[in-house]
């Protein structure tokens, strides 16, 4: 049986009085790609950001219920440790503009003041870029600025930066919405390889992408988790009529 890596029980999130995530209970299995979909404003990105406590950066936020990583409540952990274990890749590629490709990959260590010997750094950079399917393209230009890369390459650099910290879970917030179809395909191919080592939670507006890349899909609507099931089941015979209406474009 698959073990659970992230689980939430009756989890709620608020922005001030606005109840954004409502009573979400979900068990996310390890080494799976999980797609999270739903209309704009349904709470899916907020839920994603709650997993590594990113939402706390916004004033007036509040959470209730439990959200655990490996059985331990992330809200009882040091948030910096939480973000070591749960990496994040955002909608637009955001490599540090003043850093080289090499420095971008190793940035997590540098910015946290962790001393890593040069040989180990080289090793981490090569391993992370290889896992992000970028090594062959950039191995001869590691000291060029990351911003010189194409959009798809920049996004894979951001993935390499997340991988470098050896997280258990990587959160993706619409990771290909700013990319062209070829770059999108390269990032999607990468998901398949990454899930051997990491658990991927991907918020996406692109339903076909959810169908292509994920093992399981969660559908959020008005802050509630409506349905969480195997992706094949969700896209052939969803059990909730709201899911069916959404994925067939009949949502009113």
């Amino acid at each position, binding site marked *: 049986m698959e073990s659970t890596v992230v689980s939430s029980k009756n989890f709620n999130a608020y922005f001030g009085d606005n109840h954004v995530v409502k009573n979400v209970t979900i068990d996310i299995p390890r080494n799976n790609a999980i797609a999270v979909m739903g209309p704009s404003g349904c709470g899916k990105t907020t839920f994603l950001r709650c997993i590594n406590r990113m939402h706390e950066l916004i004033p007036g936020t509040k959470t209730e219920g439990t959200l655990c990583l490996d059985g331990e409540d992330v809200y009882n952990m040091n948030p910096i440790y939480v973000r070591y274990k749960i990496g994040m890749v955002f909608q637009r590629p955001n490599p540090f503009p003043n850093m080289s490709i090499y420095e971008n990959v190793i940035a997590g260590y540098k910015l946290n003041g962790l001393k890593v010997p040069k040989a180990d750094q080289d090793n981490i950079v090569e391993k992370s870029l290889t896992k992000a399917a970028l090594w062959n393209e950039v191995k001869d230009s590691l000291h060029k600025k990351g911003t010189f890369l194409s959009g798809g390459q920049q996004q894979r650099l951001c993935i390499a930066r997340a991988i470098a910290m050896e997280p258990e879970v990587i959160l993706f917030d619409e990771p290909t919405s700013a990319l062209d179809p070829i770059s999108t395909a390269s990032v999607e191919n990468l998901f398949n390889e990454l899930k051997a080592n990491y658990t991927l939670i991907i918020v996406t507006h692109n339903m076909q992408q959810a169908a292509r890349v994920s093992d399981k899909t969660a559908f959020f609507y008005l802050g509630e988790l409506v349905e969480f099931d195997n992706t094949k089941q969700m896209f052939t015979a969803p059990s909730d*009529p709201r*899911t069916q209406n959404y994925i067939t474009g009949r949502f009113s």
Partner: protein
Amino acid sequence: MIRVHKIILQEGLVNFIDMTQLENEISALKAELIRMWILVQSQMNKAKEAMLQFDQDLAREVLVKEKRVNSYELSIDNNCENIFALYCPVAVDLRFLLAALKINTNLERIGDIAAGIARYVVESTANFNVSLLEKSQLLRIYEESVNILIDTRAAFEKEDTTLARSIFKRDEVLDQINIAAPESIAELIKEDPRSTNELLYILSIIRKLERVGDQCMNIAEEIIFYVEAKILKHQETSSNK
């Protein structure tokens, strides 16, 4: 909650109000399948009439119209392919399209059966003896197979899975007539050896009509798959269904 695709049967009068583009395409496809169904039904009825009246002109008409059935099949295949390519359907829409492709094939085969019966009439040198048609149970199996075809269409139009499920039991009647046919035809040949050729034609037609029941059963399974997302294929007994 199952959405019923709104269809108005007259050609060109599909209800396009408040529907997405994909829903429009699916409604148009459903209307086209129903038009094909009506044509196949008419082919079956005309082949029967041609056989009873020994009307070889009517039988030839059935053979000519078989080309129209074939062109419906090609057009529906093509429309399904386009919808798959352009709209990437999922859930109930995906199931409908998969079912439509198979129903299309089943209907085309029933069209072939009607044409096969008409071909016997065209090839025959003398009219069929109506009393032999009755004694051999051919008329009964013919009537029942056409009724099953009509009711399967009604189940498809109304997305009525109870009616679709009733087809499985009714197909058993056709199976029983078909199983009993060799013995009863052999008896009739012994009684009147001069009718051997005619009785062998009758046996072949009974065999074909039994296949109409099987095709309708396949269609009923597709209707249940499309509406309820349940797969009934290759289950051992009809009582399981």
